[in-house]
Structure formats: C-alpha cells, structure tokens
C-alpha cells in the first residue's frame, strides 16, 4: 500500500509547516506567518510568471494559514487559475482552496463555474469528480443555477464511470437540499430509482441517500423504490459473510448500505404488495435471528456493524407498528442489550425501547424490564444513560406501575445530576397527576417533590397542584392536613410555604376542628415562615391572611394587628405595602357578607392540558413528550380560554384567577413578579363594575399560560397582522431575548437607531409619532451571504396586564418571505394608541438560515412616552397644576444613582427626547429640570409633570412624576429613571 512521506511533492510547504510547529509562542507564529504572507504576495505580484507547481505550493500555504485561523484576502485568483491546469495535483489544490475559502457570492464565482463546466465536460472521470465534489461542497445557488440541469444527465448516462455516478448522486442531493426549485424532476426519476439495482454497491450507497431525500417531497413519484429496496436488502441480508467482498466489513455484509435501505423504507408505510411485504418481513426476521447467532468475530467493529443494522431494523418495525410478533421480538432483543457490558448498547437499547413502549403491541413486553431499567437509573455511570433510563421509565409508566416508578424516580431525585433534576421533577409531576387513582397520593407526591428538590420545582408544578386541589373537593381536606404537617418542618422550602399558604387560605377550615390545627395555630405556623420569605411569597401570605379573616373571624384581630404593623403598612415594597393597606381597610370597612362574597373560595379551574406537559415538550422538543402524551386528554381540554367566569368581585388569593378572567398574557418579564398585583384592589371592590378587575400576583398568569407569550386570538390582543394565517400560535412566539429590555431602554428617548444586531441579522428602526398616532419603519438587514427563507416578522401585543383592554392597535404589512444575502427589507407599522399601556408590543422574527430555523423576540420600542405632546407653561401654572396632582397615588418618585456622567446638556436632550417640554425658570434651583406634557391616547389624555433633581456630589438623582393617572406616573417614572 502506498506510504505518503511528509508533505511529499511540496518541500516548501513541509518546511513552512515545520517552522510553524517550532514556533514557541503565538507571537512567533504570527511573525512567521506574516513573513510568509509577504513572500507569497511578492511572488504573486512579481514580474516573473509563476509555474503551476509554485502556484500550487503558495496557494496551499495560504490555505494552511487560513486553516490556522488567519484571514486570507488574496490568492483567490491564483487558486482559480489552478482550476484550469491539466495536472491533477494542481487542480486538486485549486478546488480545495475554493471549497474551503470562497463564499458563494464571490465575484469569482463565474470564473469558477466556467472551470467546473470544462471539467464536467472533460470526460476525464478524475476531473469530473473534482468538479462535482466542489459543487457538493460549496452548494451555492449560483452553482445550482449553472449545473442543476447537467448533473442528472451525468448521473444516469450509460457511459458515466461508477465513481462519477456516486459523486453526481450526492452532488445532486446537495443542490436539491439547498435549492429544491432548481432541480428538475421528471424524466430521470425512474432511472434514478433504478440505480438501486446498480452492479456497483458504491453507486447504490450514494443513490439511496439521494432517493431518500427526494422521495420525502414526492413520495408517489418514487414509490417504485420500495420493491427495489426490499429486494436489494434481501440479497444483502441473506448473503454469506464473504459474498460481498469489498463491501463486507468485519464479516458483516454491507452494513451502511443496509442501514440506508432500512431508513429509506421508513419513508413509506408497509408495502402494499403482499409478496414484497412477505419478503421484507423475512428480511427483518433474518436480522433478528442473526442477532442471536454467535458472533463471527470478537472485534467490537463486528458487533457494532451488526447492531447498527439491528437497531435500524427495530426502528423500521416500530415505524410500521403493525407486526405484534416482530415488535415483541424486538423488545426481547433490546431487553438482552439492557444488561450488555457495552455501555453503548445499553444506551441504545434504552433509547429504542422508549419508542417501543408507546406501541400497544409491545407496551406490556417493555414493562417486564422495569427492574433492569430502575437498576440502570441507580447504577449507570454515564449521565446520558441514566437520562435514557429515566425517559424509558416515564414512557413505560401506566396505572399498574405508576406508584413504583414514581417512588423510584423520587428516590433517584435525591442524588440526581443537577442537569436533569428539573426534567425529572416535571416527569414525576406529570406521572403523578396522570395515574393518580386517589388524589391523596398525588398530593403526597408533589409535596415530596418540593421537599426533595424544591429548587427545581417550577411554577407550573406547584400551580398545578393548587389547580387540582381546588377542583377536587375529595382531596381538599387531605391536602390541608398534609401541607399543615409539612409546614411543621423547621426548614421547609419556600415553594412549600406558597402551596401551604394557598391551600390553607382556601381550605384551612377543613382541618380547623382539630385543636392541633386550630385557626390561630394555622396562622401562627404560616406567619412563622413569613419573614424568611421572598416578597412574592409574602404577598401571597398576606392574601392568605385576608382569606383567614373571612374563614376564621376569631383570627381577625390578630391578623389586623399584623397588617397594621409598621413593617407592613410602611413596607418599602410597594406591592406588600399596598396589600397590607388595602386588606386592612377591607377587613375593617366591609361587612361580613361583603367579605364572604369577596373572599369566597376559588371556583374550579377549567380542565385543560397540563401546563407541565407543555413545559416538558418545550424543554425536550416536540418529539420527546409525544410518546407520553398518550391520549388522556380531557374532552374539554380544547377549551383553552376557560369557560367559567367568576363573579366580578371575587378577590383571588394569589390567585388562580387569571385564566378565568380571560387574561392569557404572561406578565411582562420586566415587571417585578408582584407588580401586576392587587394594586387596584380597593377600586375594584368598592367602585363597582367600572373599575378594573384586580389580579392576584403572577402565579396563575404564567400557570395557565402555556401561554408564555401573548396569545393573539385573545380578545385583548391587538390585531397584529391582518392575515390570520400569519398569526403565530401561542407556542410560536418565544419569550423576549434577555437583552430585550436593555435594547428597549435605548429607544425610550430616541426614535431611530439599530434595535438589534447579531451575526446574521440587523434590525434598524425609524419612527415618528404625532398625537396618539405613530408610524414605524423596521429595516431587516441580512448580514450573511445566504438567503433567509420563510422570513416572517410579526408584531403582537401582550395586552396590558392591568387593564387588559386593547390599548395599542398596530397594523403591519407583511414582508417578502425571502431576504437575499446582503439585502435589506423594510416593514411599515402603523400604530394607534387607544389608551395608556405599560408593556410594549413584541416583535417576533422567524426565518430559516442555512436550513436552521431562527427565532427571536424583541420588545418593540413603543413606550407610552412616545405619545407625549410637550406643553409649555409658566411657572405659576406649573405650580398650580403640581398642587392639583397632590394625591399620593398620583405621584411617583425614584431616587437613584447616576449610571452615566451627569451632564446637563445630555440630560436636557434626553428629557426632550422623552417627549415632555422643558420649562425654564420654573424651579428655583437652576440645576433642576422640570417638564410638562400630555400623553395622547384615543380614549383619554393624561397630563404629566416631571421634575428631575440632580445631586452632583452624591451622583444621585431624584425623579418625581405627577400625572392624573397612577399607573402612568409609576410607569413613566420607571422608564425615565433608567435613562440617566
């Protein structure tokens, strides 16, 4: 066999590579490279024409330098010159350089295509292959346009060499994947299919890939491939281990071709022709039989090749899902692998069995391996194997083994890798709910989850247990008792406090008869946790307390005392303070009847698909949960909007009410969790129907949301896109990217600029606003050289959490679905502000880049201050109005540290950009700024006054906003405070 000496043929290259290897430091390497680059440049520029050998050598050096990670900006022309050499080695280096370095929109592409054309026509198989490989490696559209018509001809021509056919088949495959529209179907289809009969196994190997790809789009055109594939497979499978000579790998005949054929068959349902089907079943049986035969070699290569075929065979059997006998045999075979000493096989067996578990024919057979799988979960060293074991336990779980599996998973959770804890928690939660015969077991399981892995119990999980307890009166007493006991633990997880607080607030009365859990005991138990909890939990507990006042009048005095305490009434957190104030007032003003109505037990939740399941699907991708989501959907689960309308005055505890109110938007990520909270509680309770309904804090908004992003079909979502087809479903819009708030902040005081930029895409914004109307131009720039496909930007508005009334109308025009490399498209948005709002609309941009889907959600830079109309006024007027707006809730104030240098001019510019007029000679202190303006919305106008007091010494500002509307004051204050 040939031995290749180091860098034979190109001594200069070998020397250069050695030099680089001998460099002691990065600096030395760069120095050496620069020297070489200078040398090559001078040679290329020199007067003396270079011979082919030198050109090849220098181009090869450039390539090496590029592969080391340095930019190369010359030499392309020389490489192209090499293409027309008639020496193979020179041509090869030329093509290699082009394949690695030249991007598709290079100006050289025409010259390159010309050279390729010549080589394709050369009838020299070596040159033809080089040219085909180049097309396959670059795969650009330009090349597709130039050659897509020629290649099928080369592929099916009678006189093409085998190696050329192989390359042509895969070259065509590449072009088809890149630009299917360019590859003409039709006359050659039948001849391509017949390549499955080709003498040369290499040609068949390449052709199967091509056919597998083509038949997905045109299954009927390629249907004849089924019988050909079956007979080919049958010949391979039944051949003796040496029949196929060159294509036998460690005594296994043509393993890769077999795998490819088996995958091709998975594109189709079982063959209709009985003879073909019989032959295929025979093949599958033969593979299963061979697995039982003693190995022909001890080498792992032998068993791997054999098992590659076996696993693909099992995949096909599962795909057909119609041969009970084969399914059970497959399962038994995998069962043997579960205990194999090869980790790879154990892993693959667990993985494959997962899909078998979902077949009705093999589900029972899979279940018999439960002990082995549990053991794998406990003992496997590789976390990915343990993960597969957990997946399989989940997949094989049903009513008969749920208790065992759930308890094993719970046990595993105590020591599980951090990486997979959350997933295990979700799985346990789903199984417990799905297979709960008695709900007390379910409650126990979830509380155990919180105990063992509280940090990994996501909101979805504990919301769900509340939902279920609320809906099932047979478990409420038990739940109350159990949480009460769980809360006795000296250290319990905060999630336990949340669940406990909620359940006792609703159902604490059910255990109040027992003196050990009398109302005062319940209260003091909860309150003993209060001070160690986060704001959100404390907010929840305050709601529990007000519920207690209704449930247990005897606790009223104590609880009022707690609410009245300075630490509550003057709490620094506005949410807590507000709750304390409002609950205290409510408890003293309202009559018992009113209290009983307001604080009534929560109505049942509408049945719906478990939000936990949705979360698991999101986590693992759509395929993952499908095996598990097996049809136990409640018939009413399509009722996603929820049917039950609670009495308008029902005050929820932290509150599974959001969905019932029809609110389907998640809280704005920017807002602190509780900010949407009980702010309007009193208004709500006492002002009657005109008032806005109040919401509990966040829990159930997110809860009922698989929701995550805004649901366009909900009544308050704005008309996002006139074409309903383009409306993304709720799953379609991801949460805004983490930087979304930061990006948004940059636009509070300006209207134009670059909203977003990454390596692929730039989004620019130009906007203008007048009164309550605005027009925004979005510019999407493709920064790559590759066309974006299915490009679709959509705008949706999550709705305003506090008002949930249509507050912004945004009309968008659709843009072209393709954005060429380097091109820019523009989208116009017409915006109308109907009423004041807090959350900006979301802009979701989705497209495909190089086959990979890209998605991105941003906040559209439309904030309420955009609808400011500046108002000039004299000092006297200003102070008069300032006094008029003196109610505490009309004012919002923030004292904060300067994040930027305190420059008066910059500050002025920002305030003007914010939209208000700047009033001179109003504030007695000339350092201070005062401004005034009116927010224009269709429904109402909101007068705004602001005052900004810089303190240069302390590097602090004090910002005060007074407007006629509380939420506007607060919101403007927050927006503006982030600008300095």
């Amino acid at each position, binding site marked *: 066999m040939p031995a290749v000496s180091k860098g034979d043929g190109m001594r200069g290259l070998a020397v250069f590579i050695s030099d680089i290897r001998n460099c002691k430091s990065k600096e030395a390497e760069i120095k050496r490279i620069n020297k070489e680059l200078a040398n090559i440049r001078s040679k290329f520029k020199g007067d003396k024409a270079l011979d082919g050998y030198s050109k090849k050598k220098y181009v090869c050096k450039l390539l090496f330098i590029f592969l080391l990670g340095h930019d190369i900006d010359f030499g392309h022309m020389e490489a192209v010159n090499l293409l027309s050499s008639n020496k193979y080695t020179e041509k090869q280096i030329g093509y290699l350089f082009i394949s690695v370095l030249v991007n598709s929109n290079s100006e050289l592409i025409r010259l390159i295509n010309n050279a390729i054309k010549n080589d394709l026509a050369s009838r020299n198989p*070596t040159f033809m292959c080089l040219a085909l490989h180049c097309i396959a490696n670059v795969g650009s559209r330009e090349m597709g346009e130039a050659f897509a018509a020629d290649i099928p001809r080369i592929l099916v021509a009678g006189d093409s060499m085998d190696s050329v056919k192989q390359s042509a088949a895969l070259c065509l495959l590449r072009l088809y994947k890149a630009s299917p529209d360019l590859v003409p179907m039709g006359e050659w289809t039948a001849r391509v299919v017949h390549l499955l009969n080709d003498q040369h196994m290499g040609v068949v190997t390449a052709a199967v890939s091509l056919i597998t790809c083509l038949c997905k789009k045109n299954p009927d055109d390629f249907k004849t491939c089924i019988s050909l594939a079956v007979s080919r497979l049958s010949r391979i499978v039944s051949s003796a281990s040496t029949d196929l000579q060159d294509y036998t790998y460690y005594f296994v005949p*043509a393993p890769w071709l077999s795998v490819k054929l088996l*995958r091709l068959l998975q594109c189709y349902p079982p063959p209709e022709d009985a003879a073909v089907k019989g032959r295929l079943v025979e093949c599958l049986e033969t593979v299963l039989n061979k697995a039982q035969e003693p190995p022909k070699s001890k080498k792992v290569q032998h068993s791997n090749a054999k098992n*590659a075929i076996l696993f693909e065979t099992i995949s096909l059997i599962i795909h057909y*899902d119609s041969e009970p006998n084969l399914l059970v045999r497959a399962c038994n075979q995998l069962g043997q692998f579960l205990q194999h000493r090869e980790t790879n096989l154990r892993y*693959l067996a667990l993985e494959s069995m997962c899909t078998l578990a979902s077949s009705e024919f093999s589900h029972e057979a899979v279940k018999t391996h439960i002990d082995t799988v549990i053991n794998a979960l406990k003992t496997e060293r590789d976390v*990915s194997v343990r993960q597969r074991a957990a997946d399989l336990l989940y997949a094989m779980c049903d009513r008969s083994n749920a208790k065992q599996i759930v308890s094993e998973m719970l046990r595993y959770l105590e020591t599980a890798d951090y990486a997979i804890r959350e997933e295990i928690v979700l799985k346990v939660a789903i199984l417990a709910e799905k297979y709960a015969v008695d709900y007390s077991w379910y409650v126990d399981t979830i509380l155990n989850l919180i105990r063992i892995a509280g940090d990994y119990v996501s909101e979805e999980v504990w919301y769900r247990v509340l939902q279920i307890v609320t809906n099932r009166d047979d478990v409420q007493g038990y739940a109350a008792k159990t949480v009460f006991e769980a809360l006795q633990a000296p250290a319990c997880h905060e999630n336990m406090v949340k669940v406990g607080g909620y359940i006792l607030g609703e159902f604490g009365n059910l255990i109040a008869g027992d003196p050990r859990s009398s109302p005062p005991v319940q209260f003091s138990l909860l309150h003993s946790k209060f001070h160690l909890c986060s704001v959100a939990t404390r907010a929840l507990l305050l709601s529990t307390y007000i519920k207690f006042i209704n449930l247990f009048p005897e606790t009223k005095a104590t609880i009022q005392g707690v609410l009245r305490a300075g630490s509550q009434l003057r709490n620094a957190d506005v949410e807590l303070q507000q709750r304390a104030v409002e609950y205290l007032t409510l408890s003293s003003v309202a009559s018992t009847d009113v209290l009983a109505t307001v604080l009534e037990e929560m109505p049942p939740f509408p049945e719906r698909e478990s939000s936990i399941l949705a979360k698991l699907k999101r986590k693992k991708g759509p395929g993952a949960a499908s095996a598990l989501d097996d*049809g136990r959907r409640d018939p009413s689960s399509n009722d996603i909007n929820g049917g039950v309308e609670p009495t308008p005055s029902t005050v929820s505890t932290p509150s599974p009410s959001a969905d019932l109110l029809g609110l389907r938007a998640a809280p704005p990520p920017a807002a602190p969790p509780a900010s949407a909270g009980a702010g309007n509680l009193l208004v709500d309770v006492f002002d009657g129907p005109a008032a806005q309904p109040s919401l509990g804090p966040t829990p159930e908004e997110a809860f009922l949301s698989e929701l995550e992003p805004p649901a366009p079909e909900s009544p308050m979502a704005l008309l996002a896109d006139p074409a309903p087809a383009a409306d993304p479903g709720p799953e379609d819009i991801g949460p805004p990217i983490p930087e979304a708030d930061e990006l948004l902040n940059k636009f509070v005081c300006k209207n134009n600029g670059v909203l977003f930029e990454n*390596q692929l895409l730039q989004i620019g914004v130009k906007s203008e606003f007048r009164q309550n109307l605005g027009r925004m131009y979005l510019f999407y720039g493709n920064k790559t050289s590759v066309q974006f496909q299915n490009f679709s930007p959509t705008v949706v508005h999550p709705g305003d959490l506090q008002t949930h009334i249509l507050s912004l109308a945004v009309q968008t025009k659709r843009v072209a679905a393709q954005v060429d490399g380097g091109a820019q498209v523009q989208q116009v948005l017409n915006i109308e502000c109907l009423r004041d709002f807090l959350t900006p609309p979301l802009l979701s941009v989705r497209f495909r880049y190089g086959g990979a889907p890209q998605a991105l959600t941003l906040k559209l830079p439309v904030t309420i201050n955009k609808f400011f109309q500046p108002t000039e006024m004299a000092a006297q007027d200003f102070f008069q109005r300032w006094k008029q707006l003196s109610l505490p809730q009309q004012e919002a104030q923030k004292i904060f540290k300067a994040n930027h240098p305190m420059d008066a001019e910059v500050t002025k510019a920002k305030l003007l950009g914010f939209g208000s007029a700047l009033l001179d000679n109003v504030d007695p202190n000339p350092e201070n700024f005062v401004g005034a303006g009116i927010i224009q919305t269709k429904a109402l106008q909101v007068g705004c006054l602001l005052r900004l007091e810089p303190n240069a010494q302390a590097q602090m500002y004090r910002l005060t906003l007074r407007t006629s509307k509380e939420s506007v004051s607060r919101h403007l204050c927050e927006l503006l405070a982030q600008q300095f």
Partner: protein
Amino acid sequence: VRLKGQGKRCTRSEGLEIRFILIQNRAGKTRLAKWYMQFDDDEKQKLIEEVHAVVTVRDAKHTNFVEFRNFKIIYRRYAGLYFCICVDVNDNNLAYLEAIHNFVEVLNEYFHNVCELDLVFNFYKVYTVVDEMFLAGEIRETSQTKVLKQLLMLQSLE
C-alpha cells in the same frame, strides 16, 4: 388506551446527514474540520471549542454518543486524537461510529500507520480522503479497497 403511532419516529425528515466532521487532539487543536452545513467563521470556532469541551471530559466507560445542542456527536478516540461526527439525534449511532473507524482504517493504510503529524503535513490529502468517503453530508463509499485503489490512482497522477 395507548394511541397508535404517537410515539413512532415517523418523521425522518433529515435522513442520514452529517453536519460536520472534526478531528481534534486532546489539546483542542483541530486537525480536520469539514463542514456540511453553512456556519460563519465565528460559529465554526465556537462549535470546535464546544465539541472539544464536551468530548474530552468523557471516559472510556461512557458511551460514544453525546447530545450536543440539537444534534448528537458520535465520537471515537484514537491515541490522542478525537474523531467526531455531528449528526441528527435520531440518526443511527452505530453506523456512524463504524464509519469513523472505517475512515481511520483507510487513513492508516494510506499513510502507513497514520499518526497525528501525517494529518498535519498532508492536510490537503486528508480532504481528498474525506471526499472519497463522505460527500454532501452522506456516506459516499464504504469499501476500503475501492477507496484505497482510487487514492493510489490519484497519488500516481501529477
């Protein structure tokens, strides 16, 4: 009741498809990078680093498969070199694992007991070997005899 067909892997949308092939040494130096998907240069560098980080921490008792982003890396270690192939998660793991070995055996024959330095000094020939065996992300030729015969023929050309 289990619904029929829900758990099946019925959508084989991608077929056998390689996203990229990497040969790296333990220190993370790349000895071959062959891309079958469009990535820009920064992304390529990131992938190279991530793959190295994922693969080198695993020991011999671990599987030769690692989930990686939305894909899967099938890898095998030969002396100080890691041969990695990135494929779709539901591709046939063992077929690729042996495809790596088949490729390594060809290199071994071609370079007469291949070592890392052969790949460094003859990097431009390694690409030729790859193109003979893998093309457009698919397995092109699996017969070692056929591949070596072709390489020998090319070697004899000037």
